[in-house]
Structure formats: structure tokens, C-alpha cells
């Protein structure tokens, strides 16, 4: 689904001076404040991006890392990528022992050369050189130097002096060299509270960061790049795999992308045009037409990732997609747009980040961004977005990979920013309705219906492809709190028009109730949450926590007790209310039946670190209340 991100691979050159530490490679001289709890410490880093030669980017990297354990090895990032438009001119690594004595030198020819095709991609022409080194003891220090030259200047790799979790930074320097007439635009974030030096001249900008303590990953914390200093930079003109590009404003940038990458790939054969025109000719309005064409697309094509033209940024021609019936996100969105052109509906090739954490395009940075493409369709004043890589997604449905974020629309007039569909708390609704009965042996049986809407819908889409055994196993895993469970009569109803998923099934659980003498003790709510729902504990949490999407999860249960038994004391209903969530239960007894309802609401938002303990306590209370039991006495 990803567009290949060229920027990912870092390019590199040996610099002579290890200026800060006077060539001190000993792990013993690291300040303990930087190494405490760290897998590695970035001792020294000097990254230079040289744009002074028109159409060329020369990247040099000199990096010294002290590695404390196996995990820390990844922080060395001793890797350099290349493809048809770029090459690695120099690459080397030197290993130093604890005392800082040189142990081993690894030359370019000893780096491993792999194709950099990830699992989801059928073909791409990227390759990487990777250091192949087995550490024999820790800690040790490694110096990695590399130099590379590329004909792509469109990606100015951002600077993050703290690049990974659990890694301290002693010194990191970042320089951008450019022609004085090419003005450099900069967006610097999260500098506050850090020791950062900034030097600017007409042809060079330099940032230096010193002594940054390691940062740890924390559950539901903002992404690392939102917690530590970062610099993003861009120019108004650039080259993409040798092709000149224009930026400056989103309008101009979008116009360039449209004209140079998209426009000439949209021709379709006359017969294809006639075919889609016939498909929609009797349909009343644009929405109906788009739906019909979208269905045509979903029935016809499949997703295959092939990254070749212009560094993987130009879509495969629409005519080829039609002939082969496959393509990647660019090709399929572009093909869909070509089909819509044929039926006279306006649509926009839409560039964005596909990412479950709602990563937006950085709208302050007018440059190549994004890793995914969808299609925005103009329906009246509204734009509906279509995911063209999915053969199952309902019309206009976004899901967690593409919802609620800033995106760039390419129009013939130029680029425009827009925002994708947002799912609010009341949209994201999960409802469980169950009617259950206990028999005199303590066995439970009943029927179960679960309805999923909004963001919950997306997690259900894969159920249909499971066979019967996998499907029952899925419920056994989901209802793991019910022992000796057996499920039957599973019926799945996928209502794509209303974007609603229903699951119906019958439950049967032996010895659901625990026998105590002649009496029974049984949970009112068989679908209660367990302790595993409680967020992890931190003795000293540092970061705020973010709830990306609000939702409602509701259980409605009728629980009938066996004949010859009566209900003992019943738990009191509760109502818990916090900024971030609320929880409410209702319990009514009607003869031999308990009517139980619980409503859990999670509120979207960013919450201060101080509230985290309350957030945990809230879940603890929910788990306790969810697990309330009925005492059922023999008459």
C-alpha cells in the first residue's frame, strides 16, 4: 500500500574530525546521565546535505555510537540505500573496544548488498548496503561513515538528534549547504528545554544539539518525533529522480505533480470509456454513478505493489491497469480517476500518510510527503474519499489507516489541502446484545449479537474470509473469559451500504456458574473485560497520553436463572465519569431475569501525564464492575 519512501534510506561520507571528543571512542567516557537506561548513546553525529550542485544531493554521514546491548545495535543505522538514480560512493564502519582501541574495520565490499523490497511489494528497484557485524562483547563503540550522491533532491531528510527510543545523544550536528539563491525554508519543533545551537548564513544552515537524555516509549504517548527536537526543511525547486519539480505553495506543488506525474497516465481506450459510460447511463445522480464505478473497480482489480517509474512516484498508466487488472495505490487511484473522467465526475488524486496514528501531511512543509494515495470525489460541495486498494471497503469508508487527517488533493488548477472523514464518538459504536439462560447444572446457553459501526467496522471486514474452524476459534479467543465455551450457528451480516457489521451466534458454556454448595456464583456479564484491559503501569511516566478516536462500547444482557433458584444480593449500579471516559451500569430484576446494561464511552483527546494514574484507576474500576457476580441460591 505504501509509496516507496525514498527519503527513508540515508546517505552518507567520512569526515575527518571527531571534533567534540577528540577521537575519544571509549565507552567509559560517556556521561552516565546519557547512558542510564539506554541501549545506546549517540556520541557524535555529523550529517551534511549538500545541494550546492544543481540537481544533485550529496549526503555525508559520520556517526559514532556506543552500543550497550543487542537492541542498541539498531541505533547505529549502518545502512545506505541506492537505486537507479543514486549511488553510495563510500561506506565504512570501524569498531572500537571498551577502551576505545580500534578492533576492526569493515570496508564497502564487506557490506551486504540486498534488494530493499519489503514483504508487501512485488518489485522495486531499491537496494541497500547493510553492515554485517556480530558484536562479540558490549559495550563497544562503532563509527559509521558514508557518502552518497542522488539525483533526487526532493526529500530533505529531517533532523532528529534523538532518533530512537532509549538512546542518549551527546552531540549531533546537521548542516544543509545550498546555493544562496535557493532559499531554504525551515520548520523546527520541540526545541524548548533542549540545548540547541543554530547558525545560519546565506548558503548554509547548521544545527547542533548536545546532551539529550534517552526517551522511552510509553503506552499511548505521542509519537517520538512529537516529543523530541526535529527540523524539517525544503526548497521551492527540486528534482525527483532527475525530473525538475516546483514547490513554494501547495497550489504550485500540486500543479506540478498533476502535470508531470499524473496527467499523461490517464488515457483509456475508447471501448473502455464506452463500457463505463454504459454502466452508469441510467443512473440518476453522480453519487450513484460513482458507486457503480467503484464497484466496477473493486470487482476488477487487485492490489499489487510495483515501484518503478520516477523513483516510484509516477502511477502505472490507466490503460495498463485496465489490461492487467492490478496495480498499487497510485495506479489504482489514478485508474479510478480516469474511469470517473469518462463518466464526467470530478475527482482528485489524493496524497496522504496511510497510518493508524492519524499522521497528517505537515501542511507547513511544502514538499514531497506521504506514503499512500486515495481518490477524493467531488459530490456537490462534499468530497468523498475512496480507498482504491481494497476490494472490500464500502463506498466512502476510510478506516483507521486513512481517517481524519490533512491530505493533498491534486487538481488541474493546482494542489489543495483537505481533511479526510472523521469518525466521532457516536459513530464508533460497538454493541453486544445477549440473551442468556442458566440451567440447573450451572451451564449457560443463549444467543449473541454484536453490531459494529464506524471505526469498529474495519476490524470485522476480515471475518468473512475465515473458514468455519478459524471463525469459531476467533470467538474462542475473543470470549476467552468464558470457560468450556462452544459457539454455533454463526451468521455474519456485512451491510456495506450502511457500513454496519452484524455477527449473530449461539453460545453454550458448560459449568459457567461456579457451584458453591447447592448455590451458584456467576458473572452477570460473560463478555466482561479482564485485567488485560488495564493500561500498563509506569512508576515515572514522562509523556502525556493521547486517545486518537472516541468510541462507545455497550453491552445489553438478559440473564435468566434456573427454575427452583432465587437471586441473592445484587450488585449496585454504578456511574463513573472522568474527562477521558465514562462508564455506567444499569441492573434491573424482573422475576427470574436480570436485565443488565453497561455503557463505556471513551473520549477523544490529549490528556496530561498527571491524569494517567486516574486513567488506569478508571480501567481498574471498570474491570471490577464488569466482573460483578450474581449469587444464585437454591430454594
Amino acid at each position, binding site marked *: 500500500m505504501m509509496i516507496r519512501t525514498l527519503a527513508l534510506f540515508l546517505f552518507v561520507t567520512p569526515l575527518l574530525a571527531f571534533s567534540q571528543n577528540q577521537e575519544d571512542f571509549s565507552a567509559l567516557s560517556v556521561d552516565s546521565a546519557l547512558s542510564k*537506561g539506554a541501549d545506546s548513546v549517540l556520541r557524535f553525529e555529523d550529517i551534511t546535505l549538500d545541494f550546492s550542485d544543481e540537481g544533485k544531493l550529496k549526503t555525508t554521514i559520520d556517526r559514532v555510537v556506543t552500543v550497550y*546491548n*543487542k537492541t542498541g545495535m539498531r541505533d547505529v543505522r549502518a545502512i545506505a540505500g541506492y537505486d537507479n538514480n543514486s549511488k553510495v560512493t563510500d561506506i565504512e564502519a570501524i569498531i572500537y573496544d571498551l577502551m576505545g582501541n580500534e578492533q576492526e574495520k569493515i570496508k564497502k565490499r564487506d557490506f*551486504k*548488498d*540486498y*534488494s530493499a*523490497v519489503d514483504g508487501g511489494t*512485488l*518489485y522495486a528497484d531499491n*537496494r541497500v548496503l547493510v553492515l554485517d557485524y*556480530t*558484536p*562479540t*562483547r558490549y559495550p563497544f563503540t562503532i563509527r559509521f561513515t558514508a557518502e552518497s550522491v542522488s539525483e533526487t533532491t526532493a526529500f530533505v531528510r529531517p533532523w532528529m538528534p534523538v532518533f530512537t527510543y532509549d538512546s542518549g545523544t551527546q552531540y549531533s550536528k546537521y548542516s544543509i549547504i545550498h546555493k544562496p539563491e535557493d532559499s531554504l525554508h525551515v520548520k523546527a519543533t520541540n526545541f524548548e528545554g533542549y540545548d540547541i545551537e543554530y547558525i545560519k548564513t546565506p548558503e548554509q544552515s547548521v544545527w547542533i544539539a548536545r546532551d539529550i537524555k534517552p526517551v522511552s516509549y510509553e503506552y499511548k504517548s505521542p509519537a517520538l518525533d512529537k516529543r523530541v527536537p526535529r527540523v524539517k526543511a525544503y526548497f521551492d525547486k527540486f528534482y525527483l529522480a532527475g525530473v525538475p519539480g516546483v514547490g513554494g505553495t501547495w497550489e504550485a506543488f500540486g500543479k506540478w505533480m498533476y502535470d508531470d506525474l499524473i496527467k499523461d497516465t490517464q488515457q483509456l481506450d475508447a471501448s473502455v470509456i464506452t463500457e463505463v459510460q454504459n454502466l452508469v447511463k441510467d443512473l440518476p445522480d453522480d453519487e450513484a454513478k460513482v458507486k457503480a464505478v467503484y464497484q466496477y473497480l473493486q*470487482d*476488477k482489480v*487487485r492490489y*499489487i505493489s*510495483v515501484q518503478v517509474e520516477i523513483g516510484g512516484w509516477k502511477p502505472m498508466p490507466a490503460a*495498463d491497469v485496465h*489490461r*492487467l*487488472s*492490478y496495480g498499487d495505490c497510485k495506479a489504482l487511484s489514478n485508474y479510478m480517476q480516469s474511469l470517473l473522467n469518462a463518466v464526467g465526475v470530478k475527482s482528485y488524486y489524493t496524497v496522504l500518510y496511510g497510518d493508524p496514528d492519524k499522521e497528517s501531511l505537515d501542511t507547513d512543509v511544502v514538499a514531497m510527503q506521504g506514503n499512500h494515495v486515495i481518490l477524493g470525489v467531488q459530490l456537490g460541495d462534499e468530497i468523498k474519499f475512496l480507498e482504491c486498494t481494497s*476490494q*472490500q471497503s464500502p463506498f466512502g469508508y476510510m478506516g483507521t489507516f486513512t481517517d481524519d487527517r490533512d491530505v493533498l488533493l491534486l487538481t488541474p488548477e493546482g494542489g489543495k489541502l483537505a481533511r479526510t472523514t472523521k469518525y466521532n464518538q457516536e459513530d464508533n459504536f460497538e454493541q453486544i446484545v445477549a440473551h442468556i439462560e442458566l440451567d440447573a447444572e450451572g451451564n449457560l446457553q443463549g444467543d449473541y449479537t454484536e453490531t459494529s459501526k464506524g471505526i469498529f467496522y474495519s476490524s470485522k471486514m476480515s471475518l468473512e*474470509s475465515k*473458514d*468455519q*474452524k478459524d471463525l*469459531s*476459534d476467533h470467538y*474462542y*479467543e475473543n470470549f*476467552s*473469559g468464558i*470457560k*468450556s*465455551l*462452544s459457539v454455533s450457528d454463526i451468521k455474519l451480516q456485512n451491510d456495506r451500504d450502511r457500513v454496519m457489521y452484524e455477527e449473530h451466534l449461539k453460545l453454550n458454556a458448560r*459449568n459457567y456458574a*461456579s457451584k*458453591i*454448595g447447592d448455590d451458584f*456464583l456467576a458473572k452477570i456479564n460473560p463478555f466482561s473485560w*479482564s*485485567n488485560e484491559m*488495564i493500561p*500498563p*503501569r509506569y*512508576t515515572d511516566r514522562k509523556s502525556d497520553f493521547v486517545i486518537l478516536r472516541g468510541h462507545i462500547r455497550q453491552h445489553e444482557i438478559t440473564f435468566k436463572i434456573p427454575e427452583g433458584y432465587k437471586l*441473592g*444480593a445484587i450488585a449496585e449500579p454504578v456511574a463513573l465519569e472522568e474527562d477521558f471516559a465514562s462508564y455506567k451500569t444499569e441492573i434491573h430484576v424482573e422475576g427470574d431475569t436480570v436485565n443488565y446494561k453497561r455503557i463505556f464511552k471513551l473520549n477523544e483527546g490529549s490528556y496530561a501525564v498527571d491524569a494517567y494514574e486516574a486513567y488506569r484507576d478508571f480501567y*481498574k474500576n471498570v*474491570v*471490577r464492575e464488569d*466482573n460483578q*457476580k450474581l*449469587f444464585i441460591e437454591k430454594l
Partner: protein
Amino acid sequence: MRKITLAVLLMLNALIYGQDFRFGKVSEEELQEEAHPKDPDANAAVLYREQYSHIEYSPNDGFTLTTEIFQRIKIYNKDGFDWGTHVIPVFVGGAKDENVSNLRAVTYTLENGKIEEYKLGNDGIFKEERSKNFNVEKFTMPNLQPGCIVEFRYKFFSPYLSTIDKIRFQEEIPVNKAELTFESPEWLVFQLHRKGLFPLDIQEKNKADKINFTSRVGAYSAGLQGGSRGTLQSQSIDLMNKTYSIKVEDVPAMREEAFSSNIDNYRAAVSFELSYTKFPNEPIETVTSSWEAVCKTIYDSENFGGQLKSDRYFDDDIDEILRGVSDSKEKLVRIFEYAKRRMTWNGYLGIYADEGTRSAYKNGSGNSGDINLNLVNMLRYAGLDANPVILSTRDNGIPIFPTRNGFNHVIAGVVLDGNVLLMDATNKIGAVNLLEEGLLNWNGRLIREDGTSGWVSLNPSSHALENTMVNAEIDENFALNTKVRSQFTGHYGLRHRKNLGGKDEQEQLEAFEEKYSGIELNKIEIKNLENPYEPVQVSYDFAMENGVERVGDKVFISPLMHLASQETPFKSEQRQHPVDFGYPWKDRYIITIKLPEGYNVETLPENGIYTFGDDMGSFKYLISSTNNTIQVSTEMVINSSIITPDLYKGLKEFYTMVVSKENEKVVLIKI
């Protein structure tokens, strides 16, 4: 001639089965089929697969292997589209490269009752250089639609003859019909190995053939002008060809299942391995045929036996380490620990030394062959009866037949007082006779200095053991205050070393909180993580707020507290593959709970003993109470690390009873 016979055979098939399995002869009925008649859940099915592998001689290349593949695959729905993309691994960089040629592929669809064909073009074929010696050729079919059929055929040329590997007859989807023909000249004698439970009918026959070649006779050179280029002469040699053919029909799909070791152990497949060569007028040269022969071949290799010959590079170091030690066991442990310290595994498995023992020793790193052959060498130097033991890891599958490729790892084995002690110096946290779980795969083969060999069991003979003591007290607020002390021995110890080693106290605490969800530890203390010869000792204490339930004037206590299993791992109703626990194990818990003031025991769960199979597993539960305390002791034992599918129902039942017993409650009543 051969082509004609094949064609005739195929025609015959067509007559018998009513389906025409020639390329391009896809029928309307096949395209109309909406679901597999015997497996309606299947996303796709192999309608027909034909592989013809034959070894041929050419004067330029000598003997080479050509494989012709033809497949017809039905795709029922979108989830079956993965079967429209195929990947062929290609090894290159030797004297001659492998290659794929004559690739032809077509997608067939039914449109308005008419069969449409879409040919695979060059834009659907991709060649990728993965690494120096390994390329892949991939192709993805055009115009896939639910219900379509894809057909492809190609020739695969290989100069490598020693193994013709894993020809599968069983897939994740049903295979309706598959045929394999393998043909080799009588001079190259192959051994056929089969795998899986599906019966394979193997036909062998011999038929006469000829090898033609031309040679120059009378060529000589005499200066620039003269000389003679000789004359070309055709010659031919008569020989017999041996043919194996296998035909299968209606092979059911075999899908992945949880808790299995390696599904490839169960799939129907065959492979051929060159066992010896017998050329005219030359003596027989054995390659493989028996375990004995396989091991001899391996031992004779320069990268195996050849690595065990010199001790000059480490003798001083070992002398130093063994100074003053006379006990053999002590010597062994010292050398093993030294090898672990001295060399670090580079992550590559292999039975052969990659860098060479000497250089691995000097550089301090190497593959498993480098490190453990070094270990054997050092142990021998110290006068111990040490030998390499080759084995196949779980990921690699079980070596059922004598084959060189069946083994992928080597460790060291020492016979001491009649027992074999196994050691793997690639694992820094391992101990003598305590191997990483992935290595506990049936048997290994111990190869002696004279080239003879024998089996040694890799399965641990002793149980992994947990001993846990809990002291708990219910306070006046009905919170449970609990102190726990546990000891983990054998493989349990190894597992804890692996999971907890290198972590700080906070991370260790989190690991235990995750293991027993719902408890919050106040502190944790772990001993012996660095010493693999002692049990790992863990002490922690915690308060459990939800540990006790109150309903009216009654209090319900789950006496096993956090140690009670929350659920059984065996939820499926049926099982196709064995359940693999890895090693036998025993968990013992002793729990003492002090009751709150003003409460008496109303009911206690009953004592119980459950067993499973013929001494395969057991669970004991004993509970008693005195004035103000309850004491529970439980013991869960699994004696057999592998449970076959026929015993699955029993195992599931056993676990269900155990989980239910572990969750039974004590009821207290207010006085």
C-alpha cells in the same frame, strides 16, 4: 519420443477423468465451478500440477537437471488471489547459474459464456537480485477475478544435482491432481525421501536410453600453417534411465494451526538426494544412502572433520583454564564456559564451519559450525570423549531420512560416565545438557573421530520445574497482601534467563505483571540470572485489590490467586497436528492464606486428582484449613512433550477440568 509418450499419457488421462490437462485446454465447467466440491471453504485449488524433472548430459555442462513445471490453478474468490503471484528462487554465482526459461502463463475467465484468455506479458515478470548468490523470479497474473483459472508452465535449469528438494503434493489449498516424474541415468543413484501422512504411490521403472556426444579425433597442431583440426566423430553410449513417477489425487488442504512445531513436517512431499555415483569403469562413490554414509560424507568434508585437526591455536589458553583441574566434569564445564565467553554467534546456523575454527577463535565470532566444532576440538584437547552432534532445528523440520540437507546445526556431545552431555556454545545462557528450545527436535547424530556415528536423543530427560510458595494475608479492607517466592529449574530457568536477562528491575517487574495480569508488584528480586547452573529465584510481593469478592455477608476467595489459569489454551474442538510442549514440565504451588478477623470458612473446594492419558499428565489439588488459615497445594505435570492429535480431546478435557478446579472458590462467612 518422450514427448509423444507424455502426450499420449495426457490424452489417456483426459479420457479417464473427463478433464483435459493440456496447456490451454481449460474447460467451461472448470471455470463455472463456484466452490471446491470437497472443501467449500477453499479459496483456491490446484486443479492439476505436473512436474517433470530429468537429468541430462551435455558435453559442455556435464550432468544437469531440467525441471518442467505446469500448473493449472482455480481461484474461487479474492482471498485466493495470492495464488496468482508465484515466486521462483534462483541460485546464481556458481560455475553455472540456475535459470528460468520458456515461461508461458495465461489467465482464463468466463465472460458472457465465452472463455477469454489473458496472457502474462513481460510487464508482469520481475527479476530481483536478493543477494550475491540468490535471485528470485516472480510473476503476477493479469486480470484475476473470482472464478478464474490461471495456468503457467516454465523450464527450470539447474546445475545442482545433489538434492532435488521438497516437491510438495499438499498445500494450504486442495490439490485435485498432481503428477511427478523424475528421471535420472543409472550412473547417478538417487534416494527418494517422503514426508507427510498422505499415502503416495510411487512407481519405479527402467528404460533404455542413449547419450550422444561428438568428439574430435586426430587433432594436432604443427606450427602456424599446418596441422590438422582432426575429424568430428559421433559417439553414443547406451545406458538405462531410472524413472520414478508419483500420481496423487484429491489431496486435502493442510492449513496452519496454533501450537504446532513446523507444518512442513506433516505436508505430503518428496525429495530426491544423490546417494552414490557409479560411472562405467569407475568405482562406486558414495554420497548418501544410510545415516552412516551421510555422516561419513559430512565428516570427511574439509569444513567439518577438517576443522577438528589442529589445536595449536588455542592450546595455551586451554592449559591456562584447566590449570590444577583434574575432574573431568569440571574440565568440561570450564571449557564450555570459556567457549561461550570467547566466541559470539553471528546468527547463522550451519553444520559446516563458515570462517574456519581457527579464524573464528581468533575473531571471537562465527556460525554454529565454527563455534561448536571449536568446542569439540577444545574438549578433545582436554582428553574428553567429545564429538560433534549434528541436528535439525525445529524450524528446519525433523530429519526422517538419511540426508545431508536434513541437518542445519551442530553442537558438542561428551560421553562421561556412560551419559551423553550436550552443549551448544552459541547460546550464552545455555548450560550443559540445557539446549535452547528450538533444538529439542527428536534426535541428533553423534559423529565419532573414526567417521562412525549414532543417534543421541535431544529431548530433555528431566522436567522443567517451577516451585512456588505463596504467603498471603487478607486485611481488614479485604485486600490481599501477598509474598511469593519461586524457583525455576531447567528449561524454565532458561526461558526466564532469556526473557529477563539484561533487563532492569522495572522491566523485570513489568514482565511479571504482564505474565500474571491484574497484579501490581511492589518489588521484585531475581537471583541467579547469570548462573545457568542454579535455579532462577524470584521473590516479589504485591497487594491485590480485586482478589476477594464480597456478596452480602459472604466472602469468596480464589485460593490460587494470580496463579490460577484464566483460560485453557486449547479451545478448538479438533486438532490436526500434534501439540508440542517442547519439554516435560512440572509446576508445584504451595499457598497459605491468612483469613480476616471475624470470618470462618463456610465451604472449601474438594480435593482432587486428575490424570491424562497413560501417565502423560496429572494434576493434584489438596486444600485444608485450620483456625484462621487455608493451605492449598497443587501439582501440575506434563510428562510427554508431544501429544498426538488422537489424544487432543482428552488433553482438552483435562485442561478444562484443571482450569475449572484452579478457579474454584473458598467461601467465608461472617461470624
